[in-house]
């Protein structure tokens, strides 16, 4: 990259930064696309681990170490160490959300000539983000009381997995399809609508004790007074309090780091590898290996 800088001296620092941000955005989209097609069931398998544990407790059975529980533990350990990289770069539902939101913005700009994308009011964000905990508790209760399997037709993730397998016969799954359509509608009017408001696995991740070094670190004393660039970029409205980045809601979009005029947001992996792109690629490769070992990849079977 430094070489390119010397070859094209005409670019201003601001232009270089813009170019770098665009590259990182494309890299993220590329990684997301790879995982979207190779591991679309990762999030559901991990959450099925939660369901499996509580269904067995409800039925009075002994807990069992199976592929769903190992997927859950694998996702959780990865998240404790690296923060919610899984949410930001891997999860198929997150990728779907990003795609729908981007498409909605494009349509609103080009077709309806709106300058600003129509949004669900930010005032509702803190309340909305609590909803996922209610959903998590409700699903755990349904599992523990043995009622969950009776509601299988309501499961929007099942319908999503149908589509991913290119199956379009949805007999019995109409309530699930309606819920999925509602979720996709929400995704169009709020970035990461599902992830921050509804995702029960996101609730599990947010409750995990992520290592203090896992999220991006900000040194408030080095900030430009009054600058709120990172906060305005944040898809999940994280506050600028000193420990705001530790509250578990960060989904790892890493957009704040790109927009910061003083490059005041960084993390150990980015410092170590001296490159944001390399840090993302290394973590993606690590997760890919983990996912294959956990049996989450559609194309590779390991016994």
């Amino acid at each position, binding site marked *: 990259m430094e070489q390119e800088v010397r070859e094209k001296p005409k670019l201003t620092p601001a232009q270089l930064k813009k170019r770098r941000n665009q590259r990182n955005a494309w890299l993220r989209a590329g990684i997301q696309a790879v995982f979207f097609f190779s591991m679309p*069931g990762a999030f*559901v*398998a991990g959450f*099925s681990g939660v*369901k*499996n*544990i509580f*269904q067995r*407790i409800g039925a*009075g*059975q*002994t*807990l069992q170490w*199976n*592929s*769903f529980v190992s*997927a859950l533990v694998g996702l959780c350990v990865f998240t404790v160490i690296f923060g919610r990289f899984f949410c930001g770069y891997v999860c198929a539902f997150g990728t779907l959300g990003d795609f729908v939101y981007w498409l909605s913005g494009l349509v609103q700009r080009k077709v309806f000539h709106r300058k600003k994308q129509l949004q669900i009011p930010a005032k509702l964000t803190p309340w909305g983000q609590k909803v996922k905990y209610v959903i998590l508790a409700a699903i755990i209760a349904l599992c523990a009381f043995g009622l*969950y*399997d009776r509601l*299988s037709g309501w499961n929007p993730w*099942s319908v999503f*997995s149908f589509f991913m*397998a290119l199956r379009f016969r949805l007999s019995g799954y109409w309530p699930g399809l309606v819920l999925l359509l509602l979720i996709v509608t929400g995704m169009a009017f709020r970035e990461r609508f599902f992830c921050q408001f509804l995702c029960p696995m996101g609730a599990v991740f947010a*409750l*995990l*004790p*992520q*290592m*203090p070094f896992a999220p991006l670190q900000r040194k408030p004393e080095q900030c430009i007074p009054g600058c709120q660039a990172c906060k305005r970029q944040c898809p999940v409205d994280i506050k600028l309090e*000193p*420990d705001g980045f*530790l*509250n*578990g809601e960060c989904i790892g979009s890493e957009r704040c780091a790109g927009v910061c005029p003083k490059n005041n947001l960084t993390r150990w992996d980015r410092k170590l590898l001296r490159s944001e792109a390399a840090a993302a690629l290394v973590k993606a490769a690590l997760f890919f290996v983990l996912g294959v070992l*956990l*049996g*989450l*990849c*559609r194309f*590779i*079977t*390991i016994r």
Partner: protein
Amino acid sequence: MKLGNFIAKLLSLLLVIGFLMYYQSVAVVRAAAVEENEAAIAAVEAHNREVQQEYEALLRAADEAEAEAQAAEGPYVNGVYEGEGTGYGGAVRVRVEIVGGYIDHIEVTEHSGEDPAYYMLAESLVDAMVTAQSDQVDTVSGATFSSQGLIQAVGHAL
């Protein structure tokens, strides 16, 4: 208080893990007791059946040959059967071997369309169907489609 949040969550997580471990220890003891009870019940039932069979053997001493033929044969016809069902990502194929009229062995010959993490759970149904001597078993929660594919394939073979 940068670490307060982390420590609170760590303690909560340890609490949850502690609860699950405590539950597991209780459940293991309970499962062992249940197994013991079931073994005792099975022993008594086996004894009853033996007595019953002796009694019936005495009753049907006249046409002994017929009774023997009936006792030896299970509900299925001997042979090796292939079956196919639709799983999550394509066909699931099985080979069912019937020996002595009973399901002796089920071999899954094709499951490449299933996601490994889901298929591994559904695979437990193979043993369940051999034990049940039928395809009438419940699907594994979370791996419904792979389960249905397997059950369908075995049903087709039978």
